[in-house]
C-alpha cells in the first residue's frame, strides 16, 4: 500500500484516528469505502482499544483538505464508525515498528550492532551473513535508521504503519484532538 514515503514533510498527509465498533467486517467496510471513492491509503494499523467493544484504526492518507473533508464525512456514514479524529502530527504521539533483515558480514556485524544500539533497537537474530533487527519509534526515526541500514543492504523489511494518539496537554490534561463535527446520517 505504501507507494512512496508518506512520512516526510509532504503537505497533504493526514493522520486519522478512527474509533469503530469492534465487529466482523468493519475493516473491510472502511477499506472498501476508500477503494470505492478513490482515496489512497498510505498506511493503516488496526487493533482493539482499551475497551474490547471498540477498535481503533489509524490511517495515513494523502489528500487535499477539501477531499479529506468529504472522505471523513463518507467514513462517518458507516454505521460502525463511532468517532473520527484528525491527529495533528505536532500534537500527537506517533509510533511505528520496523523489522529488517540486513546483510552483514562478520566484519560489518559490529558496526550494525552499534547502529542498533545508538537507535535503541533490538537484534532479533544473527546469521552467518545477515542480522535481523527491530526498531520502534517515530516514523522519522525509522526513516533515518532505514537510510543508514541501506549501505549494508536490506534484504527484507516490513513496517507496521503508524499508530497514534493525541498528546496529553500537560497543564490541562485535555486531549489535543480535533474532533470532526456533525454526525453521519
Amino acid at each position, binding site marked *: 500500500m505504501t507507494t512512496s514515503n508518506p512520512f516526510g514533510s509532504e503537505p497533504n498527509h493526514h493522520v486519522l484516528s478512527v474509533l469503530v465498533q469492534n465487529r466482523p467486517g468493519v475493516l473491510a467496510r472502511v477499506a472498501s*469505502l476508500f477503494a470505492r471513492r478513490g482515496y489512497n491509503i498510505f498506511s493503516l494499523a488496526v487493533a482493539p482499544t482499551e475497551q474490547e467493544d471498540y477498535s481503533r484504526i489509524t490511517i495515513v492518507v494523502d489528500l487535499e483538505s477539501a477531499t479529506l473533508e468529504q472522505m471523513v464525512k*463518507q467514513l462517518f456514514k458507516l454505521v460502525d464508525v463511532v468517532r473520527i479524529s484528525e491527529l495533528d502530527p505536532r500534537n500527537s504521539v506517533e509510533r511505528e515498528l520496523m523489522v529488517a533483515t540486513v546483510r552483514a558480514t562478520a566484519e560489518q556485524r559490529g558496526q550494525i550492532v552499534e547502529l542498533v544500539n545508538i537507535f535503541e533497537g533490538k537484534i532479533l537474530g544473527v546469521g552467518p551473513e545477515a542480522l535481523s533487527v527491530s526498531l520502534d519509534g517515530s516514523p522519522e526515526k525509522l526513516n533515518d535508521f532505514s537510510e543508514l541500514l541501506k549501505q549494508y543492504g536490506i534484504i527484507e523489511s516490513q513496517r507496521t504503519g503508524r499508530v497514534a494518539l493525541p498528546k496529553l496537554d500537560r497543564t490541562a490534561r485535555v486531549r489535543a484532538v480535533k474532533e470532526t463535527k456533525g454526525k453521519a446520517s
Partner: protein
Amino acid sequence: MKSNQQLTGAEALIKGLELEKVEVMFGLPGGCILPAYDPLIKSTIRHILVRHEQGAGHMAEGYAHVTGRPGVAMVTSGPAATNLVTPLCDAYMDSIPMVAITGQVPTSAIGTDAFQECDTVGITRSITKHNELVMSADDLPLAIRQAFHIATTGRPGPVLIDVPKDVLQNMMTWHWPSDDEVIDSLPGYKPTTKGHPRMIKEAAKLILESKQPILYVGGGVLKARAAEALRELAELMNIPVVTTLMARGAFPDNHPLCLGMPGMHGTATAVTAMQRADLLIALGSRFDDRVTGKVSTFAPDAKIIHVDIDPAEQGKVRKPDVPIVGDCRLVIEEMIVALRDLMAGGTKQADISAWRSRVNGWKENFPLAYEPSEPGAALKPQYCLEKLRDASPEGTILVSGVGQHQMWSSQFWHFNEPYTWVNSGGLGTMGFSVPAAVGAKVGRPDKTVWAIDGDGCFQMTAQELITASVEQIPIKVGILNNSNLGMVRQWQEMFYDNRYSQVHFSESVPDYVKMAESMGCVGIRVEAQEEVESAIDKANSINDRPVVVEFRVAPTEQVFPMVAAGRSNDEIMLQPSQEKRRELLR
C-alpha cells in the same frame, strides 16, 4: 421484554417483521431461506411471490416510494442475492427505505464455496446503507430492529440482513429489544434532524436579501414529508420552485410558482432560472450532474443554501454558503419561523417582482412542446402521454422506466400531489417500472397505477405481470413502443453522426398483445391517433386484471430541451421550433 419463549430463528425473524408492522413482503423462496418460509404460512404478513428476485426488490422500492414505509424483500442465497443487487443499488442511489433479507449457507459451510454460496454482505457493502451477516439466532431480533431503524431514519436507504440457514433453524430465547437497546447498540449512528438555529437564521437573512431566488427542490423533501412546509415557504416569499426528477410532485405543477423540472431534459425556464439566480435554496437535493451540467458553469452568480440530512452531501459538488444539516421538514418549518421573525422585526424582503416577471416571460415563451404528427403518420409519444394524463383519475400514480419515455413522462404529466411519481433516478435502472408499479399498487390499492415503459425496458422485467395477474394486482402498463432503445438512438443521432449501433429492436417481435394475454393481462394495441383515447378509457375501466396498452410511436422523436452531458446549462438545446427565440432566455 425478556421471556422464556423458545422460538426457532425463522419464527423469530417472521415475528420480528410482524412487530415492525410489516404488512406485505415481496420474495421468492429457495434452499437456504426455506426455514423462514414455513412460519410465513401462519403469519399476518402478505407475501407476494415474484418471478425474478430483481422484481421483488423493485416492488419493495415502489411500495416504499408511495407509502413512505420501508419495502421488504426476502430471497434466498447466491444467485437470488445477486439478483437483488440492482434494486439494492437503485434504492441506495435514490434513498429508498428498504429491508432485504437473504438466506445464506449454514455457518459451518461459509467460506467453502458451498452450493449457492456467495459473499452477499461483501457484494452489497457499497450499495447498502448498512448490511449484516447474522451468526446467531439470538442476534436476529436486534438485527431486525436495527435494520428498520437504519433504513427509515436519517437519509433513508436499503439495509440487508444475511441469515445462514442454521441460524434460521436453531432455537433461541425470544427477546424483543427496546428502543433504548437499539440506540445503545448503534453508538456510531446518530442522524442530525434539527438544523442549526444560527445557520437557519443566516439562511433567512440571505433569502430576504435575494433579488433572484430559486427553490431547488430534491427528493429529500418527499422523504421528509415536507411538501406542505415547502408550499408554505414558497408562497410566503413568492419564490419560484424547480422540482428535480426525484421530487416531481413535491410542489404542484399547476402552481403559478412552479417552473417544472431542471436538468438535462428540464424545462428551459427551470434550467435558465437556476443559471441566472442569485440564490439557490437547495432542499434535499444533491447537485447531481444531470442537474448541474458542467459544474464550473452552474449557477455562477448564485449563493447556496444547502439543506440536507446527509452531511456528506454538503460541499460534495458545490460549496454552500450556508450549509444546514437536518431533516427538510423540520428545517423548512424553522426557516419559516425565522423569516417571519425577521419580517416582524422590520426586515423587508428585497423586491423580486422584476425576477418574477422575467421568469414568467420564459415560462410563456418556452413551454414544453412537440410537433404534432401529420395525419396518418406515426403516433407521437408525447401525445399519448397527454391523453393518458387527461383521461386518468386525479391522483393517478405514474411509474416509469428509464429513457426517453421517462423524460416525457416527467415533462408532460402534471404532478399536483406528492407521492404520485415513481421512477429510478440515480441509478437509471431499465426495467424498473413494471415491478415498481406492482409494489406501488400493493401499497396504494385505492389509486390507479400506470406504468409507462419503453419497449426496451418492458422486455427486461415484463414477467412480473404474471405476478400481478396471479396476485390480482391490477396495474396498467403503457408501452411507448418505438422499436428502439430510444434514448441511445437519440444520442447516436446527436453525438455519433446518425451511426446507429445495436439500437434497433424488432417491429414484429414480440407481439405485445399476445404477450400480455399470455400473462393473464388484457392487451391492447394502438397505432392511430383516433384509437388513443378509447384504448386509455378501456384500460382505465378494467380493474380486475392488469392491462397492457402498446402505443406504436414514432422512432425518430427526440427529447427536448436537452443539455448534452458535460456541457454547460447555458448551452441548452431548445425544442427546434423555439430556437429562434433563444435570445429571450437572458
